[in-house]
């Protein structure tokens, strides 16, 4: 008898699978012969999907966004970082813009704002980590991170959180940097990283055969909601990111059991340059 054999399945450690246990974990398979956009999100509106916008806050009752189900702010006092409900809205306008892009694509989704701006530059890394930790703990389906950090001291923890999110079925969508600097978390394989293309179609997105930027989405001259109930025209990878977050929200509302691995595959198969956008 092999020293690796076990008397019963209960004794098996989490990293192994006994010869007889394969059948016990049969997973549902409803994959079509060809994954199309119609299969992926046809008729979907984001219903039932919980989306988190990790940003500068979201303006309350903006006409282009409507109800934000929950708003929290991460604050730093000395070494203590806290997450608490907050009604101060948006300190910049950027979070409102991202929430508006997601809302336009997936009007029925549930939106939560996590404000990680406002603690000063020096506190920004710790606050971003605490905000992401909170979002992962809360188990959101999609987290939009139109932000990055260049501070190396936070990279390990950020990596752990990105991997934890991946295994808990929380899809992190992160903006790629369009400057030649090392920044994170968009470089991690456990997130979906997004850069910009120049089309004006919000549903046009391209799978990049040369990562680490994995997808390109609309990020040029995008009409977005901003502070004071107004709208602006904006450009940047940070606006391309919520386009992909919105598409992921649609896909998950129709196929809620998809893992991040599967979701990324569906994104690839339905990309404009892969399935011709069909």
């Amino acid at each position: 008898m092999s020293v690796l054999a076990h008397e019963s399945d209960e004794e098996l450690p989490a990293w192994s699978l006994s010869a007889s246990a394969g059948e016990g974990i049969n997973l549902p398979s409803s994959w079509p012969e060809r994954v199309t956009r119609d299969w992926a999100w046809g008729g979907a509106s984001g219903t039932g999907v919980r989306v988190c916008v990790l940003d500068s806050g979201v303006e309350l009752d903006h006409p282009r966004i409507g109800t934000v189900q929950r708003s929290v702010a991460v604050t730093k006092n000395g070494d203590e970082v806290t997450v608490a409900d907050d009604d101060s809205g948006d300190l910049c306008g950027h979070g409102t813009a991202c929430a508006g892009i997601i809302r336009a694509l997936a009007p029925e989704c549930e939106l939560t704002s996590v404000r990680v701006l406002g603690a000063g530059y020096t506190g920004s890394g710790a606050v971003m980590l605490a905000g992401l930790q909170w979002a992962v703990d809360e188990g959101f389906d999609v987290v939009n991170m139109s932000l990055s950090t260049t501070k190396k001291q936070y990279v390990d923890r950020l990596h752990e959180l990105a991997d934890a999110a991946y295994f808990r079925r929380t899809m992190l969508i992160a903006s790629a940097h369009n400057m030649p600097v090392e920044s994170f978390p968009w470089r991690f394989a456990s997130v979906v990283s997004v850069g910009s293309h120049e089309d004006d179609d919000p549903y046009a997105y391209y799978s990049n055969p040369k990562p680490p930027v994995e997808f390109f989405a609309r990020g040029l001259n995008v009409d977005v909601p901003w502070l004071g109930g107004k709208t602006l025209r904006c450009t940047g990878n940070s606006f391309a990111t919520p386009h992909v977050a919105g598409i992921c929200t649609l896909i998950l509302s129709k196929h809620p059991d998809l893992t991040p691995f599967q979701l990324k595959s569906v994104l690839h198969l339905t990309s404009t340059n892969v399935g011709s956008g069909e």
Partner: protein
Amino acid sequence: MSDLRAAVAAGVLGTEDAYRSLLQATVEVARAIFHAKAASVFLLDQEADELVFEAVAGEGAGELVGKRFPSSTGVAGWVLTTGQPLVVDDLTADTRFSREAAESTGYIPRGLMAVPLLVEERALGVLEVLDRPADSTFTLAEMNLLGLFANQAAVALDLLQRGRRARAALDGDGELGALARIAATLEGAEDEQREAGLRLLAALEQLLR
């Protein structure tokens, strides 16, 4: 000891005025290449956690240098904190970003481009370019140009900060200040005195090894 090395190098590298000229030239060129009404560089004051107008070209030049605001609010604060560049066009000139900018600059921009100034993992500040021509359509090639230009501005800002740290080390009363003053004195000494001083320093170095 990087401050000491910087202090010794400062005597060779130049003066505060030279650094300022470099930064001023940077914002002038930023304004010119984007045909903009104004361009500014904000420096992050880490101790106060505030952004400070360091150089301005065009609208606001001459009045804004030295003005401060919090490091993590508004468009500049978002760009600094998140490291992501941003281009915003206010088609109605009536949103809060315009009013914020108007309060700090005395002038209402229709649009702005903001990009972080990054050197390795440090964010030193933000470059803003205000009001490109009204009929210009923004492209990703311009976004790329903005990023490339920001790298150059970041190097200028890094030099300015290193120069200031070097000067602080030279002017300081601590032991680094004393060493830096000795280095500076040797730089300007007569040949004979300089050689004697260097021999003495070589002996001291041997003793400390």
